[in-house]
């Protein structure tokens, strides 16, 4: 060390700078070589892992297909899964489980079940990715046995883990999970409302009652109520008409109104038309548009002039909804006449007729 210190002290500023530069260049060259070596090692590692995965899947694939057709063949699979290969087998089963439903999915769940226990502690692992993976796997292959772990993940600090848990639970067609999911919707406030609605609709008719309650509950945020209304429309829930009509009558939030009107279009009754007519004059184009569509589905003969008038609405979205409403109300001939006329929106009539193959 003293020799190095003496050497450095003896250097002029210029020589010192040159040495620093030379060392920097050497370091950068070394860095480049390290990057290159790291890349090649990554490649080698990937190839080794892929080769191993290919070997394992080749060993399991045929017996798995047998087991899917014949339950007696399930025992053979377990004999082929070594102690250190259990989680690989779970991964293998998960990939199949994504592609199948019904009895085949149940077979896969049965096959994976003995190997799932080690995943439970991973649902509280410190790394978010590990938790997500564990919740996803338990959600796909481990319900209802591991329902506690998956439900607990709804309160995970990471919204991503919570979303994976919610999605897994929503797919179960089980009313027990509806309330826990709906009460956590506030956690997904950045997610697309349509996405959340589709996820909730995945609960099927069993979740409809809880959805109706949320939609009707004025203490819930308008966004959450609107999502519930969209989910009910996706189902569609035939009992939701009165609750949707009440929302249309009372509420003022445009998104909630539009969602409830969309729901009414599918499950409403002619007596709800009086609430809908009021919304046809809404200052919000999205509300007007959905109201006109609903009026087409539920309105009466004397609503036709209102629909025809709305075809001249400044918003093209409203004009198209009005034309679709005319069609839904049985006004196909009226649309034909409009299409052949000099009406400034005759193109809308032609477009809607073409949509219906006329």
């Amino acid at each position, binding site marked *: 060390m003293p020799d190095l210190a003496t050497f450095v002290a003896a250097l002029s500023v210029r020589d010192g700078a040159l040495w620093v530069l030379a060392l920097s260049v050497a370091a950068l*060259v070394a860095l480049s070589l390290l990057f290159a070596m790291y890349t090649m090692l990554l490649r080698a590692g990937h190839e080794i892992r892929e080769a191993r995965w290919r070997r394992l899947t080749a060993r399991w694939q045929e017996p798995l297909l047998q087991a899917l057709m014949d339950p007696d063949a399930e025992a053979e699979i377990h004999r082929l899964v070594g102690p250190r290969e259990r989680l690989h087998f779970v991964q293998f089963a998960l990939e199949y489980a*994504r592609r199948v439903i019904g009895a085949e999915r149940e077979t896969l769940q049965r096959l994976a079940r003995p190997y799932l226990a080690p995943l439970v502690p991973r649902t509280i692992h410190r790394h978010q990715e590990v938790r997500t993976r564990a919740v996803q796997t338990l959600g796909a292959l481990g319900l209802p046995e591991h329902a506690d772990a998956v439900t607990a993940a709804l309160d995970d600090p990471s919204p991503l883990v919570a979303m994976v848990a919610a999605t897994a639970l929503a797919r179960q067609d089980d009313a027990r999970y509806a309330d826990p999911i709906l009460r956590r919707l506030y956690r997904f406030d950045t997610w*697309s409302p349509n996405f959340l609605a589709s996820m909730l609709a995945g609960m099927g008719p069993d979740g409809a009652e809880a959805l109706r309650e949320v939609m009707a509950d004025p203490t819930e945020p308008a966004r959450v109520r609107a999502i519930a209304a969209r989910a009910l429309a996706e189902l569609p829930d035939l009992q939701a008409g009165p609750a949707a009509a009440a929302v249309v009558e009372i509420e003022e939030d445009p998104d909630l109104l539009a969602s409830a009107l969309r729901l009414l279009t599918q499950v409403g009754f002619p007596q709800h038309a009086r609430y809908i007519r009021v919304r046809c004059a809404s200052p919000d184009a999205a509300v007007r548009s959905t109201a006109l569509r609903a009026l087409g589905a539920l309105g009466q003969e004397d609503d036709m002039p209102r629909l025809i008038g709305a075809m001249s609405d400044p918003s093209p979205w409203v004009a198209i909804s009005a034309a679709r409403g005319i069609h839904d109300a049985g006004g196909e001939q009226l649309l034909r006449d409009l299409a052949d006329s000099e009406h400034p929106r005759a193109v809308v009539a032609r477009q809607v007729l073409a949509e219906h193959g006329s």
Partner: protein
Amino acid sequence: MSEVFWTVVDVLNWVVLIYFVLLNGVYLSTSLFAFGALRRYANRMKSLDLDTLIASAGAPPITLVAPAFNEEPTCVESVRSLLSLEYPEYEIIVVNDGSNDETLARLTEAFNLYPAARLPMASLPAQPVRQLLRSRRYRNLWVVDKENGGKADALNAGINFCRTPLFCAMDADSLLEPDALIRVVRPFLEDARTVAAGGILRIANGCVIKQGRVVDVRLPKSLLARFQVLEYLRAFLSGRMGWDALDATLVISGAFGVFHRQTVVDAGGYASDTVGEDMELVVRIHRHCREKEIPYRIHFVPDPVAWTECPESMRVLGRQRDRWQRGLFQSLTRHRVMLLNRRYGRAGLLAFPYFYFLEMWGPVIEAAGYVAFAAAIIAGRADPLFVAAFLMVAVVLGVSLSISAVALEELSFRRYPRASDLIRLFILGVAENFGYRQASTFWRLKGTISALRGVEGWGAMTRTGFTLVDDDDDDR
């Protein structure tokens, strides 16, 4: 006089050295951010089966808007590739921008098009539409046939007929991977504030394409195209990924980007008086949202892929780079108010200054530096200390960054299956510093000068068409 000249040369040399330090410093920083972001992204994708989630429920309908001008050799193949995308609900609007070749005829014949009615849903400025055509064979395929007005004008015409919440702007000659839409739409689902998201562009030259899909990824045969492969990896995986990690994405490639339709309409659509309409739109969306105080996010997503054909001749490549530089210049000077302005957040404080000082004026500084450096060497006045410093920041650091981009590719997506391709890419990372980089600087300098002179126009891009194989050529 002579002394003054050499003083200027010395000053120039130091300016260039500082420029290289800053430029490579930014590259290094974005690479480091990209490294972390890509690792997180790869882990996230491994731990979340979001693709199935999206495909099964809640995926928003999308309209693909593909402007086509004289795309006769590739248009049918490109549209076929769009028709085979894996996405629950989407429409395709091909905008024939007054092509004077057989583009429209080829599309009409291949897809059995007929005149159909459709109401425009917006009124962005665009040249008159001659006719609207719809495919009898594929009900989600439409063609807008309009007067020529340039790419931005064609995109505006397509957006006017778009009726889905999102649209995807793309080049008619690009090939989207089947799951590209599912992947690029993810930020819109995860964060409802997202107004735009771009995917990665990869070079299709040399790859084997079958039925509109890239089935075998190979490096191009041409050296010029290979340099561009490396350039694209660096630009997307190190650059855009890094800027995305900093939440300061300022560019979404015009060849593949998804936008929230209403936001684009409210911002005024594409500007047809610039050749850099893609960057200009993204910069304008930043301005629009910030000035109207609309919460928003703009993202780069690294795994949805659009394959594109790159130029294989110096002449065409030069024209392309000239145009890109003019587009950059026009976009940045038009929105100069954002420069170092806190009102525009990280886009104004980080990304805009980088693009403005280092990318826009970079070619001028770099070209002046090359001349000054050569003059100093020839006159024997070059300071060895300076030469060492120059080489270090201009070449060695550049090589490190290129190699790190290849490492990022291997870490994340591993699209080049042959180990020999990786080695070739490493060699290209060294070789590009001797000739290709200087040529690129020259083209960009020309672009800057053209922009200062107010030159407009795109310059022709000659397409050779993709390398295709037939169904029975599987073993090739």
